[in-house]
């Protein structure tokens, strides 16, 4: 059971994650006025924001340590924030700046922070196998670290996810797979792409325990995550956790959501995990002042990070040629050609 301090922490992180997305949306769209041109404005490229997903990232990552590994998909910010990523460096990365996590090479779908073992990537379900690998490394080293792979409900039909369930299971690895079910994969509602009502139904076929949290409730998610992560940490193997979240914005910025019924959009906005937690906090006698303080602290961190990021220099064009390899092939000026014989025994 979570203490009220923990709930406050979670609240603050959720507010931070939400406000982060709102501010990025602002920055992103502002740069794309009057006509939306994806190549204009301060934030380059596509942008997938996670407003409405906060309870998942926070409810799960609350139970993780820096040494635990997390892989996230194309919609990663709330998870990254909950995992304790360097917020300024992440923001600079999203703005494509030199001091970004990857020096501007990765961008918002490719955030890597080895200090907290966080990584994300842009291909559906692609992070599952590396999470299994992190679990394998933990097992081989006999640590009690765990690995968590996040994916969308649209990703449950991808081989990389399904194969990973099996590999983690047969090797009994400390891995938790977390499906964030926001009902949509871009424009495709989940019933159009799979016959199972919920992704968690896949678990049994791989001999994995599976749990679904139907409400977008960080406390319920946190409880389920405690079990799953605890099981992994104790050497009792992988599990599958599915949580209901909501997509409060378009799939990516610029998505007019013409395919989406208004009622569905409205419902997503109404079912607000942050308000829900607020109600719980009030029931625990947390007063307005405290809540305000948590909120402003969260917002301040975000505003600071964005302000800082925007002041950062852009990378030099020539930096593009670096980092293809960790140990680049040496250009040895004194190299002599190698001359050998071959064939038979000597």
């Amino acid at each position, binding site marked *: 059971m979570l203490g009220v301090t923990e709930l406050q922490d979670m609240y603050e992180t959720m507010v931070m994650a939400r406000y982060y997305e709102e501010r990025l949306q602002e920055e992103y769209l502002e740069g794309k006025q009057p*006509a*939306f*041109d*994806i*190549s204009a404005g301060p934030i*380059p*490229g*596509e942008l997938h924001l996670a407003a409405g997903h906060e309870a998942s990232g926070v409810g799960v990552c609350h139970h993780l340590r820096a040494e635990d590994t997390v892989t996230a998909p194309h919609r990663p910010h709330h998870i990254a924030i909950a995992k304790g990523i360097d917020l300024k460096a992440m923001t600079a990365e999203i703005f*494509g*700046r030199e001091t*970004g996590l*990857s020096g*501007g*090479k*990765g*961008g918002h*779908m*490719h955030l890597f922070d080895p200090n907290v073992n966080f990584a994300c*990537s*842009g*291909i*559906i*379900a692609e992070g599952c196998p590396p999470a299994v690998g992190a679990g394998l490394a933990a097992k081989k080293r006999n640590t009690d670290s765990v690995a968590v792979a996040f994916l969308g409900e*649209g*990703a449950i*039909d*991808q*081989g*990389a996810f399904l194969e990973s369930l099996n590999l983690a299971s047969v090797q009994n690895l400390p891995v938790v797979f977390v499906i964030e079910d926001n009902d949509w*994969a*871009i*424009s*495709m509602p989940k019933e*159009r*792409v*799979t016959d199972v009502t919920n992704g968690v139904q896949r678990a049994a076929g791989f001999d994995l325990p599976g749990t679904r949290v139907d409400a977008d409730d960080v406390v319920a998610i946190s409880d389920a995550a405690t079990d799953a992560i605890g099981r992994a940490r104790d050497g009792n193997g992988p599990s599958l956790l599915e949580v209901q979240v909501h997509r409060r914005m378009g799939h990516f910025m*610029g998505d007019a959501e*013409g*395919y989406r019924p208004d009622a569905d959009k409205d419902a997503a906005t109404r079912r607000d995990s942050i308000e829900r937690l607020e109600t719980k906090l009030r029931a625990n006698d947390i007063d307005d002042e405290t809540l305000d303080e948590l909120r402003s602290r969260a917002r301040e961190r975000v505003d600071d990070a964005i302000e800082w990021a925007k002041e950062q220099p*852009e*990378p*030099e*064009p*020539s*930096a*593009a*040629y670096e980092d*293809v390899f960790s140990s680049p092939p040496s250009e040895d000026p004194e190299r002599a050609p190698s001359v050998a014989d071959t064939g038979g025994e000597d």
Partner: protein
Amino acid sequence: MAQQEEHRQTDRSLTMSRAMVEAIAHEMREDDAVFYMGEDVADYGGIFDSTEGLLDEFGPDRIMDVPISETAYIGAAVGAAQEGMRPIAELMFVDFFGVGMDQIYNQMAKNTYMSGGAVSVPMVLTAAVGGTYNDAAQHSQTLYGTFAHLPGMKVVVPSTAYDAKGLLHTAIRDDDPVVYMFHKRLMGIGWLPAPDGPKTGVPEEAYTIPFGRADIKREGADVTVVTLGLHVHRALAAADSLADDGIDTEVIDLRTLVPLDIETICESVAKTGRLVVVDEDYRSYGLTGEIIAGVAEAELAALDAVERVALPDVPIPYARPMEDEVVPDTDDITAAIRRVRSDE
């Protein structure tokens, strides 16, 4: 030639995506066996407008949304094609090839051969390619060389609306698997403004453009530039700017990589002696090498100077200054053209 005349005469111009959609709609009306599968191709109309408006006319059974299971649905297209259907399967970004490559390469491309011709696979695999809008290493590649290297697939890369429509008619009617790679930057999508070049006159009626016929987009006597896709337009811009300096550049648009029209290139190099190959794909072991080697085999004596302008061998970076650095632009092409002329 005749087709190109016609294209000059039509007074209706279309974006590349509208031209492609027109070809698909026409073929779907003519032939019940044609259908389209992909992610977000129904209600959304294709992330890059590749199926915009088609759902209304043809309904969800023929403009089919599919699960995010590229292996399954591309392989299903192979199976349906072998039964005589004519599926078009869309890979949303070519960068995702790795999740479906076994079906693409070990079945789609090889089944005709492995069956000694007993089976054919009349399908089209469409895929969006290309960078220039900061989508980073997993969403910006062209991978022209990867697909063209592996035998059994015809590989098409249009650069204009006119070519896009004609080549797509040919692709859908072709009895073999065709990989049809369209450049996002050329489509004319609202949120991704296209340059002017790709929007051309397009006849309303159906017409085909034969595979294996490069198109000389600009005639010139001094230097041969060979390129494709987006870079046709960048090469034309370079050629225009050099014309003021009296450098007369020929720009050849490959249009299809398999079959490759090496003859047209060689004829041009026989005339100019100077070759610049421009490619948005990675530099090494790919298209630029192939073109240069093909010319060296056939016209070594005529070849006075050669340059390649391509994406260097680095994954594609996100931030603008770095992406701009690695994706060849008009200035890079101009400089290369000047270099191959530098001994004169």
